[in-house]
């Protein structure tokens, strides 16, 4: 129908393994029957529903708060104010060095509000409806203040200051410089200057909003937090110190999560409010974010300006280097920021061989919702910028964007490739992927199609988006933001055990949101123990009580295929070794190397009739262990912590390896623009993926498709737009248009497999897609405008009216570019 899938080019002869097969997902059945358990499905007797009263102002002093009228209503259980929060908790730990380090961030606004939608008071009542109604009776007096919503003016002398504690709106700044810029610009034939580029504000708007059901056990002083937070390790680190409790007092439980995309990492302020209310009111409390609340307050993707960019290039299109000032709009609080100020550096040169790079990075606060991770977090912005530079250079110098890419792509024979800032790209073949993509789009016939489109009065353009999905973070990169921080490396945990009746039970530290962890983990386990997928029971979701988590546990930043599955592999191999030890003893001293797994048990390879089923193994260790040898130290309950091989980078030079793997995507888009209206259709689209060894190709392809759709929505429609007073103009799915079924273009997918040399399974984390759809559509519009005003596509948001403006008023449309002969 609308999709075409090209089988991957196999890098190895297929083996008889579960890995590599598109087995059906274990998760599907319960989800298809309506038997998933999402957070709003969790109910407790006597629970109260939370509604947050939110700021109607972008910036204001809070003069007074009176909750008495709300509390008088029958069925209202109680309230929580910022004043109470400030006395019961400490401000959240800040990642930033000064001045951002000085922020005093609490679960509710204290003294001031700084964006429309900031939570000021929480009301708890017997029903959702009553909580909402009673919130109307909370009386809050505000003294409005001027707002700043344009990052470019946040540091103006007359700009209002959001955080007096920080002494201004600059939150963090850092200079990144590698190579020899002066030499590069001296060597250049041409210098392409780009005044301004803008990456707009949007996020992935998971269909399920944030939520929690929180119970407080007064006897032991412990909270159980049923939630859809996707990074409990981070939430715990934020919440424990703020709530003045140890992490043993915070039990996080998740099961099914209705999409995350990074947007469910920073719900810790609301979770703290829930915890305080559960304790204060002596009853379970339930919070489910309204859609409008999500849009107004949760995890907007980083908005970024690239100013005064200069690209040093040779006449033949050889790229030497670039310099720019990146201005990041963090919104009102630093909830995960300013990590975006370094995360981009995982992909500093994009996919290109330029060696001389300088980025002056600044992050400022504005009266808008706080930015936090969003699919492609911070790398997407930088990769879009990189791709824009490539296409603008090609456009200005009259070169073919395909040739410029091929001339400058890092080559397959240079892998592993050390980037100018010390990151190591593990593997890949970008030029080959591009060729496959161009072939699928019939690039050779594109000029004929262009002419045919023009005969119908349409402008046709083709564009390429080359992008990286860097995965498995080295958290030491946080020390480039703040050398005082004590984070480095990464980890993930799995446990695998044999239970009494031989059940193989797996627990993970991750919090999947549709990525199929139960399925892929089973594939890894079943290959080692030579059993069926049905024999492997992977517990759904995350529970702190399982002891299968560590500090970085969660599902984020493209890492499960490396961190999670290597932990599963490690734990299963430990279990396999123990089973063989046990069986060896039972068989009367047979060495492990003489044993093999088969048919749900272990046997002597040379005499397969000597067979011990897993059921017997589980029963012996767990319930029938008298008479076992004293030196047989096996538990059949194995825990493995995977730790990638990372070092702390050189902080001074900002040099070192920041991520373990680099999945790659190359997309090609063909657009047709109606020059009268600016309306355009994507008439052809190709997505080529390389994420190394694929455990389950169908799941990988699903991630590719989903990331593509999100990127197309972002580039064409989605934006969190604010007016100058700080009102969000797109607070729901009416105004914030996400792609619907009728919006979807035809799609062709293809893939190659470049196994990672740095991971045990050859896998690479993937799923974020690096915003390739944004890059390719911007490039395609740029191409279509060639000879039709030649406006520069300077913004990542290109709704129809902006395309119309670029056609009608190319000189004023923004993105002034000039070329200087060096």
């Amino acid at each position: 129908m609308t999709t075409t899938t090209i089988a991957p080019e196999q890098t190895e002869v297929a083996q008889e393994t579960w890995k590599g097969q598109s087995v059906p997902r274990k998760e599907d059945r319960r989800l298809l029957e309506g038997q998933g358990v999402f957070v709003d499905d969790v109910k407790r007797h006597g629970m109260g529903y939370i509604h947050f009263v939110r700021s109607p102002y972008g910036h204001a002093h809070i003069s007074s708060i009176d909750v008495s009228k709300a509390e008088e209503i029958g069925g209202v259980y109680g309230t929580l104010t910022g004043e109470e929060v400030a006395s019961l908790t400490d401000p959240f730990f800040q990642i930033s060095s000064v001045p951002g380090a000085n922020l005093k961030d609490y679960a509710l606004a204290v003294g001031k509000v700084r964006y429309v939608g900031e939570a000021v008071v929480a009301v708890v009542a017997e029903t959702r409806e009553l909580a909402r109604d009673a919130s109307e009776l909370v009386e809050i007096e505000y003294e409005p203040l001027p707002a700043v919503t344009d990052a470019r003016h946040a540091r103006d002398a007359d700009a209002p200051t959001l955080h007096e504690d920080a002494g201004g709106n600059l939150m963090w700044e850092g200079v990144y410089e590698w190579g020899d810029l002066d030499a590069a610009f001296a060597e250049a034939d041409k210098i392409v200057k780009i005044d301004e580029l803008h990456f707009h504000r949007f996020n992935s708007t998971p269909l399920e909003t944030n939520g929690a059901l929180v119970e407080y056990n007064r006897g032991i002083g412990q909270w159980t937090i049923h939630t859809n937070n996707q990074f409990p390790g981070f939430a715990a680190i934020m919440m424990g110190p703020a709530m003045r409790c140890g992490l043993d007092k915070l039990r996080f439980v998740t099961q099914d999560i209705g999409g995350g995309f990074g947007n469910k990492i920073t719900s810790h302020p609301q979770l703290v409010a829930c915890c305080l209310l559960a304790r204060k009111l002596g009853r379970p409390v339930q919070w489910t974010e309204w859609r409008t609340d999500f849009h107004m307050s949760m995890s907007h993707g980083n908005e970024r300006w690239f100013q005064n960019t200069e690209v040093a290039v040779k006449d033949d299109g050889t790229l030497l280097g670039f310099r720019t000032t990146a201005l990041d709009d963090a919104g009102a609080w630093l909830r995960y920021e300013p990590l975006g100020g370094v995360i981009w550096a995982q992909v500093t040169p994009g996919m290109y061989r330029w060696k001389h790079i300088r980025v002056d990075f600044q992050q400022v606060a504005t009266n808008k919702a706080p930015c936090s991770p969003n699919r492609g977090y911070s790398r997407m912005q930088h990769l879009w910028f990189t791709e824009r530079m490539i296409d603008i250079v090609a456009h200005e110098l009259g070169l073919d964007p395909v040739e410029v890419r091929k001339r400058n792509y890092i080559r397959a024979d240079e892998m592993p490739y050390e980037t100018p800032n010390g990151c190591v790209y593990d593997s890949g073949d970008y030029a080959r992927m591009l060729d496959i993509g161009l072939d699928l789009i019939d690039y050779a016939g594109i000029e004929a199609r262009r002419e045919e489109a023009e005969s119908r009065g349409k402008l046709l353009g083709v564009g390429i988006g080359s992008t990286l999905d860097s995965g498995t973070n080295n958290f030491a990169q946080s020390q480039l933001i703040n050398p005082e921080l004590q984070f480095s490396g990464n980890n993930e945990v799995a446990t695998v055990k044999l239970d009494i009746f031989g059940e193989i039970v797996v627990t993970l530290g991750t919090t999947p949101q549709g990525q199929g962890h139960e399925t892929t983990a089973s594939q890894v386990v079943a290959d080692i123990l030579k059993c069926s997928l049905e024999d492997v029971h992977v517990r759904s979701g995350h529970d702190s009580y399982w002891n299968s988590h560590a500090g970085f546990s969660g599902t984020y930043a493209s890492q499960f295929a490396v961190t999670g599955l290597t932990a599963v592999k490690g734990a299963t191999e430990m279990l396999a070794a123990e089973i063989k030890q046990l069986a060896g003893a039972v068989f009367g001293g047979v060495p492990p190397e003489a044993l093999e797994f088969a048919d749900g048990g272990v046997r002597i390879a040379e005499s397969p009739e000597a067979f011990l089923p897993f059921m017997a193994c589980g029963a012996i260790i767990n319930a029938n262990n008298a008479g076992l040898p004293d030196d047989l130290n096996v538990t059949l309950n194995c825990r493995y912590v995977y730790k990638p091989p990372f070092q702390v980078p050189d902080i001074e030079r900002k040099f070192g390896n920041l991520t373990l793997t680099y999945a790659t995507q190359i997309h090609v888009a063909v657009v047709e623009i109606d020059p009268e209206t600016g309306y355009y259709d994507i008439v052809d689209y190709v997505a080529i993926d390389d994420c190394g060894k694929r455990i389950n190709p169908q799941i990988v392809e699903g991630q590719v498709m989903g990331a593509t759709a999100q990127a197309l929505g972002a580039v064409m429609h989605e934006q969190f737009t604010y007016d100058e007073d700080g009102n969000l103009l797109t607070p729901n799915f009416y105004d914030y248009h996400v792609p619907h079924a009728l919006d979807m273009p035809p799609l062709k997918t293809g893939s190659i497999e470049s196994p990672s040399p740095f991971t045990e399974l050859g896998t690479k984390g993937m799923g974020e897609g690096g915003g390739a759809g944004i890059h390719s559509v911007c490039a395609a519009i740029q191409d279509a405008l060639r000879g039709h005003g030649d406006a520069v596509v300077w913004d990542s948001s290109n709704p129809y009216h902006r395309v119309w403006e670029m056609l009608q008023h190319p000189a004023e449309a923004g993105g002034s570019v000039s070329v200087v002969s060096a």
Partner: protein
Amino acid sequence: MVSTEQRISVTINGTTYEREVEARKLLIHFIRDDLDLTGSHIGCDTGNCGACSVILDGRLVKSCMLLAVQADGSAVETVEGLADGDELSKLQQSFKDHHALQCGYCTPGMLMSATALLRANPHPSEDEIKKGLQGNICRCTGYWNIFEAVKAASE
């Protein structure tokens, strides 16, 4: 606070429920909160996303756009009623076969819309499938595999 309770009788997936409900309670909250049939979901508050789609007296509706009292005397079908015992419906099985779901949050509504579509039009064209599903938002899949699943179920 004025509260107007009304007694209603609604048959869901063949079981008749009689309950007192507040006049303003939405049908989706009645189904999810009062009856604990949590398969139908809520993804927006504005009728855009379709996660709450159910079939009411044979018509596809978004249950967040109706009051519970409006369903008084009606027969409602939800995702929990699609499978025949342990056997998934052809459409459910097709979703599984074609990887037409990831997080599964939109899936119940998507299944109800597709079920209604296939009842009205057992052999829809690609365009008819897209039109039939345009009221349901999915943020994970990009819809392509959903189109494939619905098409396969119609064959």
